């Protein structure tokens, strides 16, 4: 009596009846969940600005990333793990939910902590030095390079050996001859 051979089962090609039923049930459930979720998002009870929406989170992060954490070293409110920064982020969220604009929120923090709280110093007063100095340094550097380059090129001219008088006389004579031969 010979042994009955069974074909090798390839993954994905043969699924048992029980597994198939489960897969169909899962598919129906996920479709229903997606449909119900879409309804909830657009339904009449929805105000359009959920408190924990990713959009609000992003806006909080944007504002917080422009404010300096006042108890840290060179960290923004967005990146700081400190309690105060956390409370500041909560306040930013609250103010955004109240309809305040990012500029209004930054102005509020500036009115409490001064210019220090802004990661980008405003372009006025002493801060102008911070904005202007790189350009001044660039200009001074360019002038320096120009002056040095000029000195080098002038130096080369000065160091050229004097023209041999015999050779100069020969050139003058030949030029005169050429002018004479090309005349009328």
């Amino acid at each position, binding site marked *: 009596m010979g042994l009955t051979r069974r074909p090798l089962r390839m993954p994905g090609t043969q699924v048992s009846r029980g597994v198939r039923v489960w897969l169909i049930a899962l598919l129906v459930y996920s479709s229903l969940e997606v449909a119900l979720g879409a309804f909830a998002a657009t339904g009449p009870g929805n105000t359009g600005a959920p408190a924990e929406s990713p959009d609000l989170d992003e806006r909080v992060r944007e504002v917080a990333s422009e404010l300096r954490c006042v108890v840290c070293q060179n960290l923004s409110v967005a990146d700081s793990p400190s309690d*105060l920064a956390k*409370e500041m982020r909560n*306040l930013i969220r609250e103010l955004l939910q109240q309809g305040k604009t990012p500029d209004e929120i930054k102005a509020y923090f500036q009115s409490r*902590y001064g210019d220090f709280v802004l990661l980008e110093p405003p372009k006025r007063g002493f801060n102008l030095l911070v904005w202007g100095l790189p350009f001044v340094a660039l200009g001074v550097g360019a002038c320096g390079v120009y002056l040095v380059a000029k000195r080098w090129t002038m130096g080369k001219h000065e160091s050229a050996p004097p023209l041999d008088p015999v050779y100069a006389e020969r050139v003058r004579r030949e030029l005169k001859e050429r002018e004479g031969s090309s005349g009328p």
Partner: protein
Amino acid sequence: MSWKRALIPLACVPLIILLAYGFRTDPKAIPSPLVQKMAPGFRIAIYDGEDVSLEGLKGKPVVLNFWASWCYPACYEEAPLLQATWQKYKDKGLHMIGVDIQDKEESGREFMRRFNFTFPNGPDPGSKISIDYGVYGVPETFFINRGGRIAYKHVGALTPDLIEEQIQAILKE
């Protein structure tokens, strides 16, 4: 010496001025834009007491102190002075309010018991009052005059001379 030779030392002058300014400034100090401005209004729920609002103290000088039980040693150093000052001035029209920030309630109460605080103190949930006053550490103290203006802000532990001087100033104004 030609002007060209003087150019390099002259170019260093602004740099030296800038460095001198930088080294003379405390990078940790944040000058408050609130000094000489109207004090932001607030309402605080006092531990075992009624709410207190700044609006309710209109026309009265107020010492507003921010502290925390975890602020050691500065808050522990100035706490007896605050209580002694309160005892001295409470019948002379001065109001003193303590704001316990980023603290556990039990720890805050324990701190108050330890120093026998009898002036109104309360927590600051969400650090709303602290942020509104631009507080960036503890202790910090604001001296608010009768007109509701912040006359002076002190960062760090108070000293007897300083608190006396500032209280006299806001009592007179």
